[in-house]
């Protein structure tokens, strides 16, 4: 089965693409707009809606906390309801417009026909276990992305001047990158010996009074929609820096959102990405508990237990502009949050500017120290 989906304008038959301004499908030829819901109704993929109902029988009081228990005592991760997808690399897709073979990666779910330029959505790669639950549509279009990128280049304090003109954007591609949005429950228990130290003077003696406390904290924390990049191609560190996304624009997935953009399917399922996200949530819980300890002079942790549990994982497509930039015969890749315009990626650094800043700051702080020296009575040379 190979389903290729095109969105044709009902008026003039031209290809329609998602428009960031109106949030609707727009016909480039006659300017007709159609709402996503209306267009989706025609080609709704099979399957798709996944919810993760918790098993009531599984709810057992697993922890006997000391004064109040976790709101949900279950210890286990909630199971994923989708099967891992089967490889269907061999399937050939043909453009409905011109009949040419649509050249795609095994991961691609939406692309443009390299012959006629029409937006092509590969429906079977977006159905069943591969159907995304949610999507954040692009709110920054290509022109705005280019403009935002240029602005960002100019802001770089250490980037070479001829890079800052940003006139060598090789290509800029809007990609819906597959993410898992995890809802997690984090529990933490901490047991520490803390001290409060006070010093005072009586007569000729200086007294140091150390009061010892046994400190116990137990936290039940819930996190929602922590994103985790599920694509092999995208560098994890880069994707983490693109956060945060504004979830008010989180929509139920409909295929027309992808029209005119590239989209990929996930390489790793939610269970495979779970260790990475648990590690991240562990540090969150840890810093929360530490922040509740309060005003002690010293904190000596005796015992710390943090447990992270998956409640839900939603397959979500997040909008990212990938910018390829040629500079000094090498290619630099930048990523831009397609919703907020935040740019990440390593720009080239100018040696001249680094030296200028280094000497400027060094001379400045040296001058400041000399002023202080002179003011503090070191006056006699």
């Amino acid at each position, binding site marked *: 089965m190979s389903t290729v989906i095109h969105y044709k304008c009902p008026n003039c038959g031209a290809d329609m693409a998602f428009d960031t301004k109106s949030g609707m499908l727009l016909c480039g030829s006659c300017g007709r707009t159609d709402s996503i819901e209306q267009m989706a109704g025609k080609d709704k993929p099979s399957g798709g809606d996944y919810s993760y109902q918790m098993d009531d029988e599984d709810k057992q009081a697993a922890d006997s*906390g*000391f*004064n*109040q228990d976790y709101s949900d005592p279950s210890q286990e991760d909630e199971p994923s309801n989708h099967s891992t997808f089967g490889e269907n690399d061999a399937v050939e897709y043909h453009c409905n417009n011109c009949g040419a073979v649509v050249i795609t990666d095994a991961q691609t779910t939406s692309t443009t026909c390299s012959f006629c330029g029409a937006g092509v959505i590969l429906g079977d790669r977006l159905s069943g276990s591969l159907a995304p639950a949610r999507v954040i549509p692009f709110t920054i279009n290509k022109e705005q992305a280019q403009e935002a990128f240029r602005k960002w280049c100019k802001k*770089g*304090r*250490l980037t070479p*001047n001829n890079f800052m003109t940003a006139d060598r954007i090789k290509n800029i591609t809007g990609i819906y990158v597959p993410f898992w949005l995890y809802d997690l429950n984090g529990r933490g*228990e901490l047991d520490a010996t*803390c001290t409060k130290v006070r010093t005072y*003077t009586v007569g*000729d*003696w*200086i*007294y*140091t*009074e150390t*009061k*010892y406390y*046994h*400190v*116990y904290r*137990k*936290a*039940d*924390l*819930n*996190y*929602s*929609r922590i994103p985790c990049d599920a694509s092999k191609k995208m560098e994890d560190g880069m994707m*983490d*820096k693109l*956060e*945060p996304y504004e979830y008010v624009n989180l929509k139920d997935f409909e295929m027309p959102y992808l029209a005119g953009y590239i989209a990929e399917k996930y390489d790793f399922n939610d269970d495979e990405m779970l260790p990475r996200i648990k590690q991240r949530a562990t*540090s*969150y819980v840890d810093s929360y508990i530490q922040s509740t300890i309060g005003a002690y002079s010293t904190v000596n942790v005796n015992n710390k237990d943090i447990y992270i549990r998956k409640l839900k994982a939603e397959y979500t497509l997040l909008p990212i502009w990938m910018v390829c930039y040629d500079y000094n015969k090498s290619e630099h890749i930048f990523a831009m949050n397609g919703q907020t315009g*935040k*740019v*990440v*990626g*390593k*720009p080239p650094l100018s040696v001249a500017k*680094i030296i*200028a*800043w*280094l000497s*400027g700051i*060094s*001379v*400045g*702080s*040296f*001058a400041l*120290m*000399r*002023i202080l020296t002179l003011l503090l*009575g*070191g*006056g*006699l040379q």
Partner: protein
Amino acid sequence: MIKLMNKKTITTLIILSALLIALFIPVSPALAAETPKADTTTATSYQSDQHVYDDGGLLSENEKLTLEQMCLDQGKEAGIDIILLTIDEPNVKNAETLVEDFQDKLPVADRVCALIDMNTREINVQAYGKKAEAYINPSRAQKLADLMTPIVKEGKYYNAFSILIDKSAEYMKSKPQNIITNIWLQLLVSVLIGGIVVGVMAFNSGGKVTTSANTYMNPNNSGLIGRRDDYLHTHVTRVRKPQNNGGSGVSAGGRSHSTGSSNF
């Protein structure tokens, strides 16, 4: 825009450099003019006077004469007045006030004053005058007192005083180096600061993580469900106050000085 950025960095550099250079120009001559005045006018008028006041009777006539000559010669060379006092009287005020009161009777000058008090068994060294106070600062005054202590203990008062004269004259030749005001150290620290700042700038040039532990937390159903702070016990230790010997003070006559003292 390109030119603008360039100009901006260069102007910042120029302004900062100019500021640094400007620092040293007006300050140094002003200070240089101030110090010799004190040396020449007041100190010279006092030079004919006595330097050794052996009320305690610890020195022989010969020793007194030699010390008097040493005070004169070395003091002149170092640009200070050196006064040696001894006392052995019960029921006198403490050593520090004694030296201060003695000082107030003398004309203002750069002066080092050392007292051996046989009654309280204390050595007190004080430095007066802007230059002497800066060069023989509290820590150096304390060093002088400490240097004399073991020798005074053996009863070699003459030797103790002659060491004081030598060492004071030596101290007047070089300014005490405060590690914080050391110009090379400051230079090193400045370059380090610059390096760290630029390093952070370079590290963050590729964008940084702006989410925190609170970004994804639901405040409604998250929080502490257990919290206990149990007092266990108190542990008290005490140490004797360190005896603060080296320091600064002001005499009854309003003259500031640095002091070092030590018991033998």
